[in-house]
């Protein structure tokens, strides 16, 4: 302990059996499939050889379409009439994760909206934070994205596909996703 700060607890991998403890019904549905305004957010998680990571956990946390931060409980057991903003998806044998959700709204003037994302996996010893932005003028003008080199910036911006967006996560390698540490 220095400067009155408590020493933080260290991260460890979720390991191979996370699905025992981190699964619940409907965890990929931030909103119900087929509900008005819903989109699909999907993608693949890859390792440094480009091989699919079939035991990753991807979580998203987001404001609603109007930019409101969800404050009501119901992160696990959804309420029909409210929006919890949190979703979790375990990657499948092809490394694919998938969510049904809504577009995040903007929460700060002059900054683009995004999905806050955290990734865990067997073989990954500590959490990785990242963001998923959506293509468009707000993203083009975002001050954080502008400071990244174009190739790195591109790793944070989803690609439109029918019904929603695709966004791949590369844990390592040439297309390595930009991962974040917070000030």
């Amino acid at each position, binding site marked *: 302990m*220095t400067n009155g*700060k*408590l020493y*933080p607890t260290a991260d460890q991998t979720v390991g191979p059996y996370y699905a025992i403890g981190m699964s619940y019904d409907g965890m990929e549905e931030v909103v119900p499939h087929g509900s008005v305004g819903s989109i699909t957010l999907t993608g693949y998680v890859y390792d440094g050889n480009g091989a699919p990571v079939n035991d990753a956990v991807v979580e998203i946390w987001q404001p609603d379409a109007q930019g409101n931060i969800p404050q009501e409980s119901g992160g696990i057991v959804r309420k029909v009439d409210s929006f919890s903003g949190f979703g979790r998806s375990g990657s499948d044998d092809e490394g694919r994760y998938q969510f049904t959700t809504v577009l995040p709204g903007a929460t700060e003037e002059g900054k683009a909206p995004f999905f806050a994302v955290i990734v865990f996996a067997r073989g990954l*010893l500590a959490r990785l934070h990242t963001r998923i932005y959506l293509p468009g003028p707000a993203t083009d003008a975002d001050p954080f994205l502008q400071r990244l080199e174009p190739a790195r910036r591109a790793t944070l911006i989803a690609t439109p596909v029918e019904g929603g967006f695709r966004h791949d996560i590369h844990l*390592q390698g040439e297309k390595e996703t930009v991962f974040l540490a917070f*000030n």
Partner: protein
Amino acid sequence: MQNDIPKGMTYPPGTPTQADMSAEIADIRENRPTSSDPNWGAHRTLIDYPPYRSSILRHPSANLELVDPETIELHSPAFGHRDVHWTEYDLTQQVNGEPQGERIVVTGRVTDADGRPARHQLLEIWQANAGGRYRQKKERHPAPLDPNFNGVGRTITNENGEYTFVTIKPGPYPWGNHQNAWRPAHIHFSVFGNQFTERMVTQMYFPGDPLMPLDPIFQSITSEKGQKSLIADYDHDVTVPDWALGYRWNIVLNGSNRTWFESVDGPEEEH
């Protein structure tokens, strides 16, 4: 006459032994990154840690990009008693009968680095049974499953950030990282704090476990303080007479890596 015990499995040629692995662990520990290394401040757990073979292709090579957290990241998903049934804290009462093994109580407090409690936040745990076997199809350890133990618990922290689980002390289990590799007994914890930046997953270990020095996953934390942060304390005040031994494990969340880097990892760490 010699008593007969199994020989154990035969490993492909070239599979590292525990001695090889321990040498790799010692080498990294000796040359461990210091606070001048940008990756060090961000991850006290080394993510580039080859002794844990599965990590080799699964860690980013670039430095983490330092950003100001935005509004959504400064909030956390909300969980409550709607999400978790109040009985889920007790892993010994989830099936019909009592599981085999040593009943234990694990309790503690979840706070941020300033001691502010993570109130009404979700904790999820999972673990092997007393014989070291996880309830999952992929699991190959030839130890018995326990029909009365699923190894899964959840709870919501109280007003003070406190939590309590009742469970069975998990057994160590073998894994394929190297020859004769065994994980120390541990309980997996998934933790939410007051900000999404603090969200983490980790593992709690038991004091005095002789496998900790041998385990590449545990040793991916090279500082003594960091390692200690994952070991519960035996606490006789938590022990319940005639019923269960008690362990205390406090969890300190770290949303701002930089805060930790500058103020907690002082030079006293480097000894």
